[in-house]
């Protein structure tokens, strides 16, 4: 299985913000639909580099990553196998996995 690397700051924006497209140009919904999902579908495994952006609000993160379970039908188990998060800030990784976990629990999709 091939692996794709996505740098948020370099390939998407240094200024990620907002939940859905109507919130702004660099929303979590857009990042999920245009970057994460195509990479997961095409490459199977995806590594996301989070450092270098100005910051990440919970709306952006929840929609980008919790949305993988909610809208794209991935399970937490699948994502733990195929998605790697890279950041110096471990709380950020923890926060993202908590959104994936919470949404999986809510939808009973583990």
């Amino acid at each position: 299985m091939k692996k794709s690397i996505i740098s948020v700051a370099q390939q998407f924006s240094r200024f990620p913000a907002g939940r859905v497209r109507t919130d702004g140009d660099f929303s979590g919904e857009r990042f999920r639909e245009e970057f994460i999902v195509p990479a997961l579908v095409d490459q199977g495994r995806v590594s996301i580099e989070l450092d270098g952006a100005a910051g990440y609000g919970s709306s952006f993160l929840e929609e980008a990553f919790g949305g993988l379970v909610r809208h794209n039908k991935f399970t937490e188990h699948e994502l733990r196998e195929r998605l790697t998060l890279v950041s110096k800030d471990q709380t950020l990784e923890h926060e993202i996995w908590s959104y994936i976990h919470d949404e999986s629990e809510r939808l009973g999709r583990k």
Partner: protein
Amino acid sequence: MVMKHRRRVRIILDEVEDVRPSALLYMAAVIMTSRAAGGSKAVDGTYPRSRKVELLLQDAGFFRLLGVRHRVESPIRRFPLDWIPHLCGNKSEGARVEELERKIFGNTTSLAPAASSSIYVGVTEAMTNVTQHAYPIDENINPPWLRHRWWLTGHVNRLRQELLVIICDLGIGIPKTLSQKFSMAQIREWLSFLPSIDPRDADLIRAATILGETRTGKPNRGKGLKQMKGVIDQVGGGSLHVLSSYGDFTYSFPGRESIANLPEPLIGTLIEWRLPLSGLLSHDLGEPR
């Protein structure tokens, strides 16, 4: 007056001797919205007689945002306040947040990276709260220009060694938003209220600041205020003051909360976020530039 009775309004500022930054921003929001509804001439006003107030309106970017001519030449920075000039937008715009950080702190003062990121997150989440919740899609927003609209200002006060960020909207307000999205039983649970007690508007604002700390069984939404509160705890000082409808809620470090009810409702939401520079800067601001 403009929107209800289709009448022109003149705002007389002659006698004004001082004005709070949050009141100024809110006034700018109301004037812009009235003009969007009734035309550019729907609201005009007089210059204040007080030079101090006129300079404040000028430095804060109030005149510029409203397209009012400056009468006095003024330096951009005037001790002790370095202003974030009044901004208005309808999206969550991260690039503008970094731009305002640069504007007020300049290139010679470096924010601690974690603090910079916290300010970015707090402000962009506040913008997202407005775009997501303040103007519900099924509500008739009049004028349509108002939809998703936020206003922002603030300053660094070198005397008080404090950053102030103010953001407001003219939407339906936090109490109504919360009541529409969650059951009263859930809200009472967050507030630890007995079933017989009905939360007041200030309680509902407080509930919005703790939203997400408990499992809601719903998608994680509306955590902006909680994140702003979290930054106060993280930097070890400051306060979050939120006015919305009849509610008046303040959180200040360390963990103090106070609530009050306003005698008249405030349309929309007005947030004042104060953070101590000592917790934000990697070194002191020093002498005024």
